[in-house]
């Protein structure tokens, strides 16, 4: 229970922000928080609170997996790379050949989710393939 107290501000904020399927479990000295945030900004805010409670996330006592619930098949997603183009690959993995690119800040379509990490996307030119989900943010 000690960890649930340590991260209470975080779980309270998740509840207040309407994070869906929120699951908070403590096991072997690690707290696991899973859920679906209603927007990207709610997710960002939760990570900021995490950083405040445990600066630089170095304690190793929390695994937080928050997805954004608006990222559903058919949704428009924006390429949020640092500045480079985003690789579109033949299959879900960096070992897969690159079949196309999406420009930084380009808005493309999420076709389906192969996993939490790899999403099948389609560019406006009709190129289809898998991209790393972390570089894709639902357009809000």
């Amino acid at each position, binding site marked *: 229970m000690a960890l649930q107290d340590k991260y209470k501000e975080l779980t309270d904020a998740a509840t207040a922000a309407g994070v869906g399927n929120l*699951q908070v479990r403590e096991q*072997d000295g690690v707290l696991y928080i899973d859920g679906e945030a209603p927007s990207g900004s709610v997710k960002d805010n939760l990570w900021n609170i995490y950083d405040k409670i445990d600066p630089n*996330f170095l304690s*190793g006592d929390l695994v937080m997996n928050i997805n954004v619930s608006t990222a559903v098949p058919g949704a428009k997603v924006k390429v949020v790379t640092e500045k480079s183009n985003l690789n579109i690959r033949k299959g879900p993995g960096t070992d897969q050949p690159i079949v196309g690119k999406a420009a930084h800040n380009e808005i493309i379509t999420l076709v389906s989710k192969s996993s939490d*990490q790899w999403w099948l996307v389609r560019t406006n030119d009709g190129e289809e393939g898998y991209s*790393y989900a972390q570089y894709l943010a639902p357009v809000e």
Partner: protein
Amino acid sequence: MKRRINQLLQAVMFVTLISITTFSCKPKIKDTDIEAKIHANAALSNLTASVKDGVVTLSGEVKDDAEKSTVETAVKGIEGVKQVVNNCTVAPPPPPPAPPVIAADDPLTKGITDALKDFPKVKATAAEGVITVTGETTKAEWKKIKMALDALHPKKVIANELKIK
């Protein structure tokens, strides 16, 4: 003598009349009034109540024993209620949350490769579900990396050897 009997009779009748008017004609609270008061109480809105001759039978689901006695007290407090038959059932406790699912090392290792592709100075390995991160990075990059690693369902992420510039 006869006069005294008459007087006595009159007195008896008077007393009887008084008692009839004072006790028997006391305004009776209707069952429908009790029902209306129960319906007006938001705390009782999830329950079903039937009222017959001032006896209220409560049924429905409450979350615990405390709530069961609270609703009973609330109903007893309504004017005209003679008795409460509390047939409320206590809801079963929610099942404990499912334990976290920890990914196997092979998918973790593949996930790490994908997550660290753009961060060549950061290394990470997976052993029995535990990801150990080393190397050096910036704070902003580390946040992105930690987000990506946590999404792989590791047992934990150890990064105390990581240099954050």
